[in-house]
């Protein structure tokens, strides 16, 4: 067992997921299985191989600093669950 129930709870909390006891049990086993599977890669000797961050061998995809039209306030707010005037409205955030 590599993944503990505690880790599942921690990750669920970070992802703002509420899990039932059954789900926690289920996911602990499943995540553990996935990790064990991926662990196979550790059997390969990767000495001297640079870690890959991207699958595509590409670099320096830039754009110039030129203003393009924005989509407009109404479009921006079209999918908002809640709005007020031209703002997104969300539950009160306390700082």
């Amino acid at each position, binding site marked *: 067992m590599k993944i503990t129930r505690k880790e599942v709870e921690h990750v669920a909390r970070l992802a703002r997921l509420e899990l039932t006891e059954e789900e926690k049990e289920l996911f602990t086993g499943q995540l553990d299985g996935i990790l064990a599977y991926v662990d196979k890669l550790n059997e390969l000797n990767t000495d001297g191989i640079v870690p890959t961050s*991207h699958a595509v061998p590409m670099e320096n995809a830039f*754009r110039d600093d030129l*203003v393009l039209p924005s989509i407009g306030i109404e479009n921006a707010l079209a999918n908002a669950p809640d709005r007020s005037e031209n*703002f997104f409205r969300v539950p009160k955030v306390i700082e």
Partner: protein
Amino acid sequence: MKYQVVIGLEVHVQLLTNTKIFCGCSTRFGSEPNSQTCPVCLGLPGALPVLNKKVVEFAIRAGLATNCSITPRSTFARKNYFYPDLPKGYQISQFDLPICVGGRLDIEVDGETKPIGITRIHMEEDAGKLVHLDTMEAGEKSYVDLNRACTPLLEVVSEPDMRSADEAVAYLKKLHQIVTYLGICDGNMEEGSFRCDANVSLMPVGSDTFGTRAELKNINSFRFVKQAIEYEIERQADILDEGGKVVQETRLFDPASGATRSMRGKEEAHDYRYFPDPDLVPIVVDAEWIEAVRKALPELPDAKRTRYQDELGLPEYDAEVLAASRDIADYFDACVALYPQAKPVSNWVMGELLRALKEDNREIADCPVTPGLLTEMLKLVENGTISGKIAKTVFDEMYKTGKDPAKIVEEKGLVQVSDSGAIEKIIDEILAADPDKVADYRGGKEKLFGFFVGQIMKASKGKANPALVNEILLAKLKG
């Protein structure tokens, strides 16, 4: 017990680009909420961020100006956390391969130069803005404006090398000066273009083991930085003196009370689970690119100060004042290019010019007296057309009207009287009007000389050539 404070600073520098870091939306400040947004900066699924090349160039500029090495191949990473001003649920930042590493800034405190290490400079996007309006269901809701989301930032992280609030302020001022000189940031702290977080901890004097630190946020002026750090030193010293332990936490500075207070509940958010952003390909900066940026760097404040002293022969104080901001230095340089006498130019820029601008609350870039006008006026003083005293009148008039100094002199009849016959006549009248004082002078009260000069200048409405006045007056009084 006596404690040594240890300070490291993280500064967020908002870059002066036209567009956001990963999309073409404008970065203009103060627009209607959510008017400068698109699928990329709204974090809509499927939108593809594309890096603004100018951001990389600005980052390289900052790196070179702070003695960093530029990372040949750097990458973006996702910093994962939830907050309503962060629409994607992650911030695109840099993690293990930031664009610049291992730099240094030299600060001066109490006449001593001290190097402060710069750990790294990385590029990232800003979050949106949470707005709390009194008028809108106060206390119930927060309001989100995403115009600022995706605005390009550099985060400049220092080593924990500072040992007093004054050193922290000196470092911050130096960095502020450099980024504004480089033209990559407007430096406006009130609008949040230059923001500072401070990591502050204490250790017993003589120890070299750092204590637990608190991270101070919301310190958006040089004065607040000093206040916040000094408050924090006292707070932590009290805790340690009572045998307590400083808690590692984020604390918010409250400018109204000058105190810092704990931001509870943000602790768990520190598990950011960084991973490389698959949407953004690596940035490769070769030697050629670095050289091109280096060649285009402006003369930086330290170099300017040195040049003003060594080549132009200005006193240290003048060099300091003139090099303090790029705008003032540019103005001064433009003047000296037109009229290569540094000290008179410096006297006028530091004196009348800055005073007038300050009274008017105006920037030097908007000064009605251009370098061309100021130096024309200095030439009129040099060739004897006007006296230094009259020049002040001419200056005020130029400042008010933007008119050519020669024209002002002509219109107002301010030409200096260098006709010795005319001056003699005035002197004769003044001396004749006060025979007692003349007798006193001749009896040994030499201080009266100044009195006569004053009377003569007054009678000539300030136009008499002062050198001639002195000469003729002296001759006459000697009899």
